[in-house]
């Protein structure tokens, strides 16, 4: 993992390449270097990082930051296998028209994770060769991992006072 200084240097380097690409950096709790990127330029950033040595896409996943806007986040966890450095690229998109370019050209392994993010959060990856649901049935309506999606399920005996009973997360 790059330290805070290294992260800033990387961000500057990327800004020099494309001034609009980096929206900010976040060093979080000191355990994760995060680059907040403009979703329109995410491929630019990923290409630059790939050239810098981050050649392995360890994970690609979605997050719903409800009620913050833009609500949806697409996170790319990159790994530099030579220096064992990890960096997170985070792009936030609105729920109105959640679109982002596909990373499959750069990382072929992003194919299924992108389909999963589409399935669960509804983020459309433009340019993806096979943008369908991967886990839920084809005719499923809605995107179940969004925070405003009803949990669903069967009403059971204690469902009616589930919200008020001890141990309920709130």
């Amino acid at each position: 993992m790059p330290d805070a200084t290294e992260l800033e240097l990387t961000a500057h380097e990327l800004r020099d390449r494309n001034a609009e690409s980096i929206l900010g950096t976040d060093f979080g709790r000191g355990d994760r270097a995060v680059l907040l990127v403009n979703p329109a330029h995410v491929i630019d950033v990923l290409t630059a990082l790939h050239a810098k040595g981050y050649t392995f896409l360890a994970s690609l996943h979605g997050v719903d930051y409800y009620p913050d806007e833009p609500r949806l986040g697409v996170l790319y966890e990159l790994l530099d296998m030579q220096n064992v450095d990890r960096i997170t690229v985070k792009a936030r998109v609105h729920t109105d028209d959640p679109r982002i370019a596909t990373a499959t050209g750069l990382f072929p392994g992003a194919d299924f994770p992108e389909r999963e993010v589409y399935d669960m959060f509804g983020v459309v990856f433009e340019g993806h060769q096979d943008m369908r649901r991967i886990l839920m049935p084809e005719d499923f309506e809605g995107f179940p991992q969004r925070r405003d999606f009803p949990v669903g399920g069967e009403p059971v005996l204690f469902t009616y006072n589930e919200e008020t009973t001890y141990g309920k997360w709130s």
Partner: protein
Amino acid sequence: MEIKREPLNGLTTPSAITAPSDFRARQLQARDMLRGDLEGEALERYVKESVLTTTVEKAVAWSQGNSIWPLTFGLACCAIEMMSIVGARVDVARFGWEAFWASPRQADLLILSGRVSVKMAPVIRRIYDQMLEPRWAISMGACCSSMGVFNNYALVPADKFLPIDVHVPGCPPRPEALLHGILRLREKIHGTERDGWRERYHAVGTEEVLAEGTSASDAAINVFPGGDTAGA
């Protein structure tokens, strides 16, 4: 050496046997029967003692209940417990249920051992439809019966798409619990079902129900309302 045969209990002829429990007498009676010497009342009694009458349905149910072939079909962690019932400890072969068959055409029983997702449900229904009548289904574990800890959008309870004969509670049920469920199903097949525990322990009327004045729709706070696709 001369073998001397003496009549037992002072009886001289088989037709005069009055104590059918007498083993020797029964032996002699059987011998006479084979020789064709048995006649009259003795013959009548012999036939009554030797023939068991039942109905075809009962005889068929008896054989069905003692030779069930479950389908080799595991869904989740409950399947591990299901596998262990054929082991030596809870030996289900004692009841003739040990032949886990890999083809639904030859199987009689479907044990749903685990959570059923909405995508898996049509597959299970198809497998069940491929099984020949008579067929039975056991819903094993909490997930399959009431969706258990996975009570969310992804799962469907087995009762929604399959006629379930026996529900085995537990998470997962121990092999003994599944064996108990199997024995209850066996009784059901034999037509000798016992009353449930409520009747047995005089607990009829203690069923847990929703609170007074709670409608089913009120209770369903987390349930996906039809047609509402929030977030879509």
